[in-house]
């Protein structure tokens, strides 16, 4: 499988705190990678490096389709086709639905004048085709702060989808969702695979991650503790090894996953 994204020797420190240490990580084309790890393992920092929000410390490299990237910024990552659905959804609660869908990427002419009609029209279309908002009480002018957890997640995912990403990163997308909303979310991840795109699925819950991913990477205390192809071990075996990571900080007893 060709690598879509590759991180080589990436570290990130915030003052005295080392959030990531010498991380080597890759995502293949049309691959779903499950990224597991406890709170503070460095998952969100890794995501923010991939999306250009944080810069890695000196020495680390980011490669996209084999090409080394210089200083990756948020707009640059988006232009490459990296979209992220953040843990905190990255929504602006007091703003309308259409403003949230086009947050930071407003449709405008060369002078920066907004094409509100087009954004409202596109949002309306997305509401019925992707988000599944059929109630007439919800409109593109509705304030996102009034939405349920699942609906908010829907907005964030739709935003990622709309801009035709090649790599979609879902940072704990099932957090705060009901069972049926979680099921929909997992179906959506399978849809990413079917559409030929790649995905990094980050979650605490192994029961959510295991069924939909191709490979599992375990991050612990800022380092890659190990990685496995899903077909190499059963869910029970994986659970067993995750307990070991919690105790020892290392999963590599049976060797890393083959590529």
């Amino acid at each position, binding site marked *: 499988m060709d690598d879509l994204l590759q991180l080589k020797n990436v570290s990130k420190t915030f003052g005295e705190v080392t959030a990531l240490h010498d991380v080597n990580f890759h995502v293949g084309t049309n691959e779903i990678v499950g990224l597991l790890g406890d709170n503070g393992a460095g998952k969100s920092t890794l995501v923010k490096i991939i999306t250009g929000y944080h810069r890695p410390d000196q020495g680390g490299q980011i490669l996209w389709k084999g090409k080394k990237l210089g200083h990756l910024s*948020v707009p640059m990552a988006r232009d490459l086709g990296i979209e992220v659905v953040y843990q905190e959804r*990255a929504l*602006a609660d007091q*703003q309308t639905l259409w403003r949230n869908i086009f*947050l930071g990427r407003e449709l405008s002419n060369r002078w920066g004048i907004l094409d509100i009609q087009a954004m409202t029209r596109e949002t309306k279309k997305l509401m019925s085709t992707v988000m599944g*908002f059929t*109630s007439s009480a919800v409109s593109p002018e509705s304030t996102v702060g009034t939405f349920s957890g699942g609906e908010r997640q829907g907005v964030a*995912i739709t935003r990622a989808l709309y801009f035709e990403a090649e790599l979609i990163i879902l940072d704990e997308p099932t957090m705060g969702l009901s069972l049926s909303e979680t099921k929909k979310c997992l179906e*959506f991840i399978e849809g990413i695979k079917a559409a030929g795109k790649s995905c990094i699925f980050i979650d605490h819950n192994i029961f959510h991650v295991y069924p939909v991913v191709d490979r599992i990477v375990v991050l612990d205390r800022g380092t890659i503790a190990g990685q496995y192809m899903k077909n190499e071990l059963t869910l029970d075996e994986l659970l067993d090894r995750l307990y070991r990571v919690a105790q020892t900080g290392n999963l590599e007893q049976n060797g890393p996953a083959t590529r």
Partner: protein
Amino acid sequence: MNSVVDAKPVPPTARTKGFSRLLRKWSLQITLTIVAILIWAFFLWRSPITFQSYDIYNSLMLTTPFFALVAIPLTLVVIVKEMDLSFPSVMAWGVAAYELVYVPTHSVWLGFLACLLAGLLAGLLNGFIIVKLGIPSLVATIGTQYLWRGVVLVTTNGQGSGMIEVKNTILYPLLTGKIFGIFPNEFVWTLALGVIAWFFLNRHRFGAHVYLSGDNADSARLMGVNVSRTKIICFCLVGMVAAFSGFMVSEQLLFFWPTLGDGYLLNTLASVFLGGTSVFGGTGTIYGTIVGAFVIAIINPGIVAAGWLAYWTQLIYGFIIVASVALQAVLRRRFS
């Protein structure tokens, strides 16, 4: 494609339809307009002679713009969840910069340009201290308020100066003339700035980023919005408009006092908050601010014309502001 969330019907009480939706969207503006009309109607009833004459409106159109002008960009600063208390001093600093350039060059236009640039510089300094050094805007702008007042007092030796030279340039009629002999240009400039600010806030990418930066700066940053730049531009706009307003006041009097700007702080802030802009950021309108400024402006002459002692002014200011802001909070909760 599958929908990503369950399409659960939403209770009609949570999100209302059609007319109610419009009412919710414009509730603050509608309330403020009704409050303004009620106050005006009350004064009209109490003192019909005064409030049926052109003079009172002429006076309002001449004096309100000095703080209404600054209140417009200040609305943007409050929407991005910041505060600027330094503008009264910047009003004076702008005119002091005019004097500093005019005296050696005898060019009114160069002086005027220096005035605007001085305002821009003051705004940049605020923006830099707040955004780059991370100092809370309330603290930073209290500091720069003293700083610019100090600069003015030191450069002028605390002495006022005449500005009669401005009268011989087109700037004088441009800023203080009248359109159709009815509308003072001060008022026209305020409306023009209001329209421009409204356009940029509601129809331009910059305005979209202003709302997003104030609503949720982290989300905005994650989605690629340059929050720092947006905030710095807002502070620069306040600085430039404060200097412009200061120049306008001095030009109207053809005299510059180093204490210029004192007394405008609370009126300007009250206009912004009375206009429905939330101190929590993310919401606010230019229309609300302009109406808010005229509500603030009408109270004092209204009370005097009604035959009451001017001592009542503060009490009624306070009552109207507290009642109006409380009503806005209730409406926000009711319709959100």
